[in-house]
């Protein structure tokens, strides 16, 4: 497909359901590094299903490259399923923690107002410092850094992105099918079948 969507680079959210095996992270990671693609964000943690982990990976690439990469990841033994979505197709969040001196917060009402405006909440309050937490998209968490910097931001950390796929109906049913030795047709998806026009063009 030679339209703009296909050849322009944009952020993609790659969701990977895997077994919880040692070494699988390397197998997934080298698929990107081999092609010299930078992983901008990577989150891996247990999914809602016992024994199944879910990766959220963010890269900036063209749709065509992402489609091929998703196929390569899904081919790895230990990987159950890979989805890839643009930012429009997911609801995504990152979490950030900010450590600031408590005396500044206590003394300056303006800081308190700024924190409130940015939806931050205090996680820990000690005599010497306070840790605030916000959840949001990149610009939002970035914005609070800027806000707090003049007031002596001591330390900052941000989590990887996590994303929910808007039109997904979950993974339970699919997993049950994978566990059968002869998976049903619909489960062994043939991407070429239902979305062939999107995938292949002459």
């Amino acid at each position: 497909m030679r339209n703009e969507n296909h050849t322009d680079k944009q952020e993609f959210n790659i969701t990977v359901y895997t077994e919880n095996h040692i070494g699988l992270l390397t197998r997934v990671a080298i698929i990107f590094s081999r092609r010299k693609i930078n992983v901008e964000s990577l989150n891996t943690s247990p999914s809602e299903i016992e024994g199944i982990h879910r990766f959220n990976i963010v890269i900036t690439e063209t749709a065509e490259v992402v489609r091929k990469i998703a196929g390569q990841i899904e081919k790895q033994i230990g990987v159950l399923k890979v989805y890839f979505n643009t930012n429009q197709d997911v609801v995504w969040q990152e979490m950030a923690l900010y450590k600031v001196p408590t005396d500044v917060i206590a003394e300056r009402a303006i800081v308190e107002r700024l924190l409130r405006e940015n939806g931050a909440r205090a996680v820990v309050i000690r005599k010497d410092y306070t840790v605030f937490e916000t959840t949001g998209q990149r610009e939002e968490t970035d914005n609070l850094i800027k806000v707090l910097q003049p007031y002596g931001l001591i330390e900052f950390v941000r989590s990887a992105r996590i994303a929910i796929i808007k039109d997904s109906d979950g993974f339970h049913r699919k997993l049950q099918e994978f566990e059968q030795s002869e998976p049903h047709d619909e489960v062994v998806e043939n991407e070429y079948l239902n979305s062939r026009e999107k995938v292949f063009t002459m």
Partner: protein
Amino acid sequence: MLTKEKPAPASSPKQAQTITGAEALILALLEEKVDTIFGYPGGAIMPVYDALYDYTDKLNHVLVRHEQGGIHAGQGYARSSGKVGVVFATSGPGATNLVTGLADAQIDSTPLVCITGQVFAHLLGTDAFQETDILNITTPVTKWNYQVTDASEIPDVLAKAFYIARSGRPGPVLIDITKNAQLQTFDFTGYQPCKHIRSYRPKPTVRHEYIQQAAELINQAQKPFILWGQGVMLGSAEQEFKTFVEKSGIPAAWTIMGAGALATDHPQNVGMLGMHGNYGPNVLTNECDVLIAIGMRFDDRVTGRLDKYAKQAKVVHLDIDPTEIGKNVPVAVPVWGDCKETLPLLTELVEAKDHLEWLGKFRKYNDQEIEAVIQDELFPTSEEMTMGEVVQQLNELTSGDAIVVTDVGQHQMVACRYAKLNHTRSNITSGGLGTMGFALPAAIGAKFGAQDRTVVAVIGDGGFQMTLQELGTIMQTGVDVKILILNNQFLGMVRQWQELFHERRYSFVAIASPDFVKVASGYGISGKSVSKREDLRGALQEMLSHKGSFLLEVMVTKENNVFPMVPQGCSVSEIRLK
């Protein structure tokens, strides 16, 4: 199957027996019907070798001279027999010496199970003696790898390893077993072959709508063209393929990995694809209207410049690996599946035709190629011998029934272009990785995998010197391998490129060789060197009829080039005849 002579562990479930991890490994190999192992012992795999000592009546262990030789032999065995090649190596350097062979097997889809010893689990990560992180080193070049640290895992892990190596698109698997797990005893309750892994789908359900669409395209085509690769052999679908080719009447060309799946002299076999392939198949790739790719992956050596590759054609691609479909060449009809299943379905729907006029076009190009290249290569009038005439003489003497194992470079291209192959699994070469040093050990393995066949290793003077230590393996096992060295005193392919693209600046391509016949003689292997045409046929005859291995060195002309050639960065239709 296990026999009863040994009081040992039966494989029937329930009756638990206490055995060591090392013995469990050996029992797993027997259950998987392994008959040959290529390996080299060392400290961290000693318990396995100790267990093997009790089973030498059932398992033939071939002691190689270097682990790289061991894995290439495993590859040769797998390629000639269609079975899984099994390789043993110790930890550290033993394991790292497998890496080239793993990469080769991965890119050429060769089923292997490699067992490496590893230091005791409590020493992992301490830079212990002969410790390397072989799992992470081999992750990019294995289909699957796994480290065992507890003996009780061994039966299931081995079952999984064999299942993964041989199913779907085959590939190499490496199992690293720590020494404590080899020594540890556990209750063995029997071996269960693996038939399903929930996170692995070796082959898809075939979708008939695509077979239908493929057949429609093929039936409408005026100039259809079949490209086939190794997938036809990997799927054991040679007969299904032949039936499809013959019913459809479509001309068919092969990738180097596919050579021999359809006999060389089949009237619809129009030759080899790619950089040094035949003239017609390359030129007409850019003229056909429907391109039917079967079990091949459009490697850059086959396609040349991609944006000028078969742009006029609608592509039908049959492959078991979905990630190959649409990877390099846009596809109109993706037939995802095992070609053993998809080809008969397609054959049923295609109309019987003969495409005589279109086939005639391939013949016309072939006539031009004969005149410009082949005649002089196979029947030269020059004083010095060509590689092609050696292969031609070999064809006449073997009638095309031998297994031809080749190394990498000019002789490889010449041998693959001109070797007459009557049977499948008769062309064993390092296609994807281009591993010099492959041929000698692979030929040893090929012979073990197909003991009733003549195995001829065609090797250049450069490649032979990379793994000639395996002459020791031949000496010790007495395996019968015919070694044919085509000596042009150059690293010929690099020299050819330097001549054509680097103004003949012959930078480090002149290579000196020892007296190969004397080297062979040192290993107790008979040999001969010939440099005159009148001696060639007799020497080849002597090599073939000699009982046991024989090394024949043929001195060929030094600065011959392999043509035709699709220069790098050019389209297949820009193939040059000189």
